[in-house]
């Protein structure tokens, strides 16, 4: 069986097709975000849109080096191109950082269970993002802004460790000026030039107006240590835990619920997650500890 990748659409799990073969995607644009993170805009060679949900991820392949899971950080409402924010931490991400426009990498996905936009439509939305969690959060932010009339009040809280670690600075400026989103920003460790708020992300809650517990859905995206403190603030405002969604970080290998690497207790983060209701996550002892 021989397959030239350029002619093969990704159809996972269809008879005779390997679910492990990446589809080639061409790099359209690269931008530096911080010293560690770059933003990559990609297009599948066959021209197909990924058709993803905010919160889903893809496996990015560099043949000869390997594969790693990366969250999608653009909204499906933005056309067939998609964006990935990649932090340089290991071998694969280092090689991704070396890609130049016109280069090709491999993509498997979209994978996992994201934020279902249908569930958020008609509701007030509070997004709380910490650190690199701003990357998947941005996909949902863009979605809401692009479909703004279909959502109620929209609050976005973003906490970074330091001003130098802020992602998507252009977006932050736009969101800050936009009447469509109540955007609040803080850094843990301000530098002398910093004019904004400082403190951990939960300190932003005191700047929020009263939230409607019946109407508000909350998306929490960040390091697991953040979840608990954010959820306390959310529950304190009367929002039921069933209205809280969290995105769980694991190192997926296969991405299709087999290899076991992302398993937290009985769930596979690559299938049932990475986005979970907090109520489900709470029962998973390994997810948060």
């Amino acid at each position, binding site marked *: 069986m021989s397959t*030239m990748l350029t002619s093969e659409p990704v159809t996972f799990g269809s008879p005779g097709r390997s679910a492990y073969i990446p589809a080639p995607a061409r790099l359209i644009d690269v931008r530096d975000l911080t010293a560690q993170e770059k933003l990559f805009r990609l297009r599948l060679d066959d021209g197909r849109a990924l058709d993803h949900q905010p919160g889903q991820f893809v496996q990015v392949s560099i043949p*000869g080096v*390997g594969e790693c899971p990366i969250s999608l950080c653009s909204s499906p409402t933005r056309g067939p191109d998609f964006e990935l924010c990649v932090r340089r931490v290991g071998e694969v991400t280092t090689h991704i950082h070396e890609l130049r426009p016109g280069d090709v990498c*491999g993509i498997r996905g979209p994978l996992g269970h994201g934020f279902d936009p249908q569930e958020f439509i008609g509701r007030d939305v509070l997004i709380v993002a910490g650190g690199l969690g701003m990357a998947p959060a941005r996909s949902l932010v863009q979605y809401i802004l692009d479909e703004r009339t279909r959502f109620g009040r929209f609050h976005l809280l973003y906490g970074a460790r330091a001003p130098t670690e802020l992602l998507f600075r252009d977006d932050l400026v736009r969101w800050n000026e936009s009447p469509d989103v109540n955007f609040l920003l803080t850094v843990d460790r301000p530098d002398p030039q910093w004019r904004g708020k400082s403190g951990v992300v939960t300190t932003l809650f005191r700047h929020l107006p009263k939230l409607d517990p019946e109407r508000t859905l909350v998306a929490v995206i960040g390091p697991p240590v953040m979840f608990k403190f954010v959820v306390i603030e959310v529950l304190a405002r009367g929002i039921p835990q069933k209205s809280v969604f969290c995105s769980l970080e694991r190192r997926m290998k296969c991405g299709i619920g087999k290899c076991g*690497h992302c398993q937290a207790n009985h769930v596979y983060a690559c299938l049932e997650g990475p986005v979970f209701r907090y109520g489900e996550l709470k029962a998973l002892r*390994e997810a948060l500890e």
Partner: protein
Amino acid sequence: MLDRIATHADLVAAINELAAQWRLIGPVARPEPRCQPPVRYFYEPVERAEQIDLSFSYGVYSPKRFLMPPGETLFTFRKTERGFTAEPQMEASPTALIGVHPCDIHAIQTLDGVFARDFRDEHYFARRERMFIVAVDCPQPCTEGVFCRDMESNDAASGFDVMLYPLDRHSARGTSPADHDRYGVVFGSDAGRAWLMGDGLPRTRAPGALDARDFETYQRRKQAAFPRALSTPLDELPALLTRSYDSLLWQATAQRCYSCGSCNLVCPTCYCFDINEENDLPLSTGARVRTWDGCQLREFAVVAGDHNFRARPQERLRHRIFRKGMWIQRRTGHKGCVGCARCDRACTAHINSVEIYNQLAEEG
């Protein structure tokens, strides 16, 4: 109900006929002076039926590696000027797996379930769908320490092409020549039926009243021959585990765990794997391969930032037992553990799953 009766000689002839078109795999005796009797059995490729011992005790390893090889190329790639091409590798030669005990039949059904659900794994099914399975029933436990009866996996009603019941082994083992041994035959598929009843002379005969009576006796003796080892019934294991999540027994037992992963290696239902790159020289071509991995190895649950969600051996031991006793079943509808006790025999630290279950049960 038996479909046919075959003699040992019938089966040898029929298996040798299979060998013309199929790769034969079966349990082969290997001398091992430290064992009593001084042999151990391994599933290996063979040329002739005579090399296979259908009355083997147990395979040190299960036949898992013929369905899911320890190392497997998923695809090969070739780098081009600015991109790459990839070619999936799903070759599989038709394979006849001869001499599979009911526990391993159940384990294969578990693997089938795992690789069929969610995203179907065509690499697995390329082999599975070209596999012919001849099962052999166990008239008595194959060795000490097994708990297949507790796991309800010492009988198999499906998951094979042919099941052989060694009707004379209770009474005649060691006293009658092997070629007079009778096997009760149950067909599990049309391919199985065609094998023993297809073109040419039928090698088997219809069961008579005597055979039917002997089969009843066989089943009755079998029921008596398999003791229970677990103090908790199978359907109560999930509840037992759920209330034992915070038991100190995990730590007490895992104190002696070397995190070597031998239990994962020999387990017929362990299927976790890693995916890695293999490059050729020069570096323009290579392969993406998957290799067996094990949840007992320390690095298995490491995530970004080197955080390890199961950093301590007790967390990994609990994870394994929870998978075996509850989670695989809940996810796939198939058995997570078949009670073969290979993990217990392989454990260098003598960690014993029956002891774990029974100690947890005593905690109430």
